[in-house]
């Protein structure tokens, strides 16, 4: 725990498999001791990136540095990086003790009993040393895989969808567990996942990957609250996205008015980041308040009218799909403070959100990027055409 952990740098890394480019000119700096998540859909290149850091794939071009050392071409057994494999890949012929001791023994360390015991305690598997992997549950195997990698005190620990095979409840528990262990050992964790909740829960820094590139990188809050592309907005949580046009020329103190179809909303100047004319306006469903039209005066500044199209009561919240007069749809999640006031389909409602909760994307963004349902949208004329919001509930 006292060894100086080093930063990891990827410099212009590209990986091609025949014609296909899995990772395209990727540059990345992972500070020592951070919990870094590579988040993206399957096939986005995140696992290939991980395997290149592990040494299991050779980059087609680019360099991988650990501190000052170039480890690009070093074989996996000669770099101080360990992996927790998706399938765990425990040695079936060895018991838990020998599985965990494997890395130490390969490096010629004889006194393995004490560190192995200590490591098994850390992952709460103290009594399982003499069991075989096949005799353990999925969650226990996962922790053995973690212990087997961590015991080597690597500079970087790579986790390839480590919780993918676990059921939801166990996954939640292991998320907190992993975070605790990472804080305790202080090793850099790079965590590959397609599960946005997992990434947001555990990581200090999230890199959202798509098509072999990083779409956006930042803290979970920054990336979630301020998505810079439609892909990030849709892949990370849900988003209501509408084409719009900035109204008027000058910036006002209160913000800029943007016309979306038959309504106008206000956006802080900072959110526009210098854009004007055609833009994409976005708001997260949980930011939108849904009330009876008679209570409209209680709503935040960006107000719209609509009719409830769908309602789903999910316990902690009620999820609405609201049909706007233009025909566009808007998703809204209301916290269930008073569940008896849940609306019914067909009822008119008023909705509103704070201007500062609005985010702005470039006008040429594909509004459906990052959605599982990839039906094409008609080209949207921001004023004349009906609002083409990204369909909520698609994820």
């Amino acid at each position: 725990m006292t060894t100086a952990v080093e930063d990891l740098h990827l410099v212009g890394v590209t990986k091609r498999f025949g014609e296909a480019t899995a990772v395209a000119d990727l540059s990345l700096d992972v500070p020592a001791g951070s919990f870094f998540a590579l988040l993206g859909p399957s096939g986005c290149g995140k696992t290939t990136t991980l395997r290149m850091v592990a040494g299991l794939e050779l980059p087609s071009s680019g360099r991988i540095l650990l501190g000052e050392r170039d480890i690009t071409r070093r074989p996996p057994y000669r770099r101080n990086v360990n992996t927790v494999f998706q399938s765990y890949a425990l040695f079936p012929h060895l018991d838990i003790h020998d599985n965990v001791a494997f890395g130490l023994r390969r490096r010629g360390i004889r006194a393995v009993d004490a560190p192995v015991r200590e490591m098994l305690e850390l992952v709460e598997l103290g009594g399982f040393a003499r069991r075989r992997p096949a005799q353990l549950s999925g969650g226990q195997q996962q922790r053995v895989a973690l212990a087997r990698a961590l015991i080597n005190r690597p500079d970087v620990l790579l986790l390839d969808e480590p919780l993918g095979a676990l059921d939801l409840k166990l996954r939640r528990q292991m998320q907190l567990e992993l975070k605790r262990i990472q804080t305790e050992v202080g090793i850099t964790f790079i965590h590959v996942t397609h599960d946005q909740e997992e990434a947001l829960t555990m990581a200090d820094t999230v890199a959202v990957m798509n098509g072999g590139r990083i779409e956006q990188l930042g803290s979970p809050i920054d990336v979630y609250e301020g998505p810079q592309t439609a892909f990030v907005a849709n892949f990370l949580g849900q988003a209501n996205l509408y084409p719009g046009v900035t109204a008027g020329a000058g910036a006002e103190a209160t913000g800029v008015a943007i016309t979306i179809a038959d309504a106008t909303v206000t956006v802080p100047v900072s959110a526009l980041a210098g854009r004007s004319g055609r833009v994409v306006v976005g708001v997260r469903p949980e930011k939108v308040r849904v009330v009876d039209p008679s209570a409209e005066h209680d709503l935040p500044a960006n107000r719209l009218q609509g009719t409830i199209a769908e309602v789903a009561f999910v316990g902690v919240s009620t999820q609405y799909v609201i049909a706007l007069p233009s025909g566009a749809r808007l998703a809204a999640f209301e916290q269930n403070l008073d569940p008896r006031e849940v609306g019914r389909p067909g009822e008119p409602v008023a909705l509103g959100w704070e201007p500062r909760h609005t985010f702005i994307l470039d006008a040429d963004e594909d509004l459906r990027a990052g959605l599982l349902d990839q039906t094409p949208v008609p080209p949207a004329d921001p004023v004349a055409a009906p609002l083409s919001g990204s369909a909520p509930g698609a994820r």
Partner: protein
Amino acid sequence: MRRRSTPYLLLLPGMAWLGFFFLIPLASLLATSLQRPLGPSTEDGFAPALEFTNYSAALLAYWPQFLKSFAFAGLASLIGLLIAFPLAYFIAFRAGRWRMLMLVLVVLPLFSSFLLRTNAWKTLLSSEGFIVETLNALALLPDDRVLNTPIAVIAGLTYNFLPFLVLPIYASLDRIDKAVVEAAADLYATAAARLRTVILPLAAPGVLSGVLLTFIPAAGDYINAQLLGSIQDKMIGNVIQSQFIIVRDYPTASALSFMFMVTILVLVLLYIRRVGTRELV
């Protein structure tokens, strides 16, 4: 009621086969091995008896052939293993799209007759053949020939039983999760260490069954010794065959058969205890 009897009914054909064609002949073989000659010549016939001296006499007369059988079969298994393991490893891990073709090539010789193949080796190893001529040109042969030497017998045995070594080893190598090998590399194991600590232990069941499938039939084989070896290279199979068919000394032949079976059984059990894993195959 019905459920309880079903498994036994399913076993019936197999048990009947085993009873008629193994257990009864075995009992008859045991009885024959203890028979007493009725006269000085084998033509005089034999009477039922409990002549245990048949065993000691047979062993005393033919122990060299016994030893030779196990030595030849052991060497053939060992050499076969040295050829089969790298071959199976290549097919399982490196052959890619050639994998099926290579497996077919391994099995292909089995489609022609065992006798035919062994006779072909007679030609291959003859002193006029290119193999022996090349070896002689390099002065690598102590007595200028291969045919009619133990080397030819061992080579024939190795060749004939090689597919039975390759296939089980291939099967167990193919079952190894590639991620487990990658995990070993990730955990500081060099290629040699991966072979020793992960691949070999996980392939052990295949090696075990391959060696059994080679050693047992090779030890009892008499075709290779007869076609490729000299008169000094006779194995126990040749002795039993000639005792039964030419000399017609049935008790001696039966006693040899019995001792051979028991020895094989003991050797195999020792071997399984030594290198065996919990699950065979």
